[in-house]
């Protein structure tokens, strides 16, 4: 039977203040993904291994980890792409580690709420007037930005966030852009205060890695730069026509 060596970064604050690595050699099958390997270890080799997962089909966004240095959804990353080489699994980069492969996502959760990712109306229309209609063209303006599954892989690919956790970051801004571009939404002013602040879009240096690593093909880098263009235009226009339009 063929086997594969999986090396996992582990961390247990009760025994040591520093992470350490541990290697496991487990049976290998061609259809196994990295998450299968971690579950095999947990179930058959070492029950103390701690990792986060749920749907194992690329929808829930829980199982993001670093696989051989790249941020991946482990449920969608096949071992055969590395076999017969070894696989190294680390917790998502740039986040504080709680235990083994489990990171603390509370910073991201706070940021997600901050940008108000829901449709904001200055005045809700009465129910009997029906739903808010939208044309396919209007839908296409924001559709790709709505595919985000909050897996935080873009954050772990972002060196700006790695240096400074006060940066609002790719997914939160992409989601803000998604609602800003929605024809039914009227919350741009409220979101502009957050994304237009110094820790919002302006810290981004357009590395572009967030877009490349996104498993759902969202383009956060574009969302951020487009927001910069829009808010900069507005800023200079408000100088030229301070009395408003």
């Amino acid at each position, binding site marked *: 039977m063929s086997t594969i060596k999986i090396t996992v970064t582990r961390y247990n604050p009760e025994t040591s203040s520093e992470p350490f690595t541990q290697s496991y050699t487990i049976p290998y099958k061609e259809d196994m993904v990295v998450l299968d390997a971690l579950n095999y270890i947990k179930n058959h080799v070492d029950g103390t291994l701690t990792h986060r997962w749920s749907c194992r089909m690329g929808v829930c966004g829980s199982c993001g980890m670093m696989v051989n240095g790249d941020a991946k959804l482990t449920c969608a990353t096949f071992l055969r792409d590395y076999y017969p080489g070894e696989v190294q699994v680390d917790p998502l980069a740039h986040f504080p580690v709680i235990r083994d492969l489990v990171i603390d996502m509370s910073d991201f959760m706070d940021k997600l709420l901050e940008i108000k990712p829901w449709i904001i109306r200055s005045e809700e229309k009465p129910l009997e007037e029906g739903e808010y209609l939208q044309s396919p063209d209007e839908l296409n303006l924001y559709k790709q930005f709505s595919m985000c599954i909050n897996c935080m892989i873009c954050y772990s690919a972002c*060196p*700006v966030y790695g*240096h*400074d956790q006060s940066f609002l970051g790719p997914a939160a801004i992409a989601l803000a852009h998604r609602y800003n571009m929605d024809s039914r939404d009227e919350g*741009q*002013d409220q979101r*502009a*205060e957050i994304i*237009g*602040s*110094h820790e919002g879009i*302006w*810290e981004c*240096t357009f*590395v572009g890695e967030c877009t490349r690593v996104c498993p759902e093909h969202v383009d956060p880098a574009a969302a951020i730069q487009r927001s*910069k*263009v829009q*808010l*900069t235009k*507005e*800023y*200079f*226009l*408000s100088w030229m*026509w301070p009395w*408003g*339009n």
Partner: protein
Amino acid sequence: MAVRVKTTDPIWWGLFSAGGTLAAFLLPVHVIVTGVGIAFGWVSPQVLAYQRITALLENPLLQIYLFLLISLPLFHWAHRFRFVLMDLGLRSLKTPVAVLCYGVAMVGTLLAALLLFF
């Protein structure tokens, strides 16, 4: 129009992109003309001669053009260099780095304006 952005970031980012766009479209030609062109024999030394350049700079439009060609790329440099230093981990020097970078660009702009317009 309501001002929704309360930081000065749009100013710096605006100057950065203006300078980047200007540099992207115009700089390679200028580097060839003032730089390597003469040595490679593509450009006649007469192109940069004193009489020709002083005559051209009588034209106020060309004065403004040369001013922008100096000033905007300086701001482009200032902004990118500032953030390169941040990306290299100099977060603790955030403010001094910003002041120094934009300061250099502003001094350069001021000198260009004094030399070209006065």
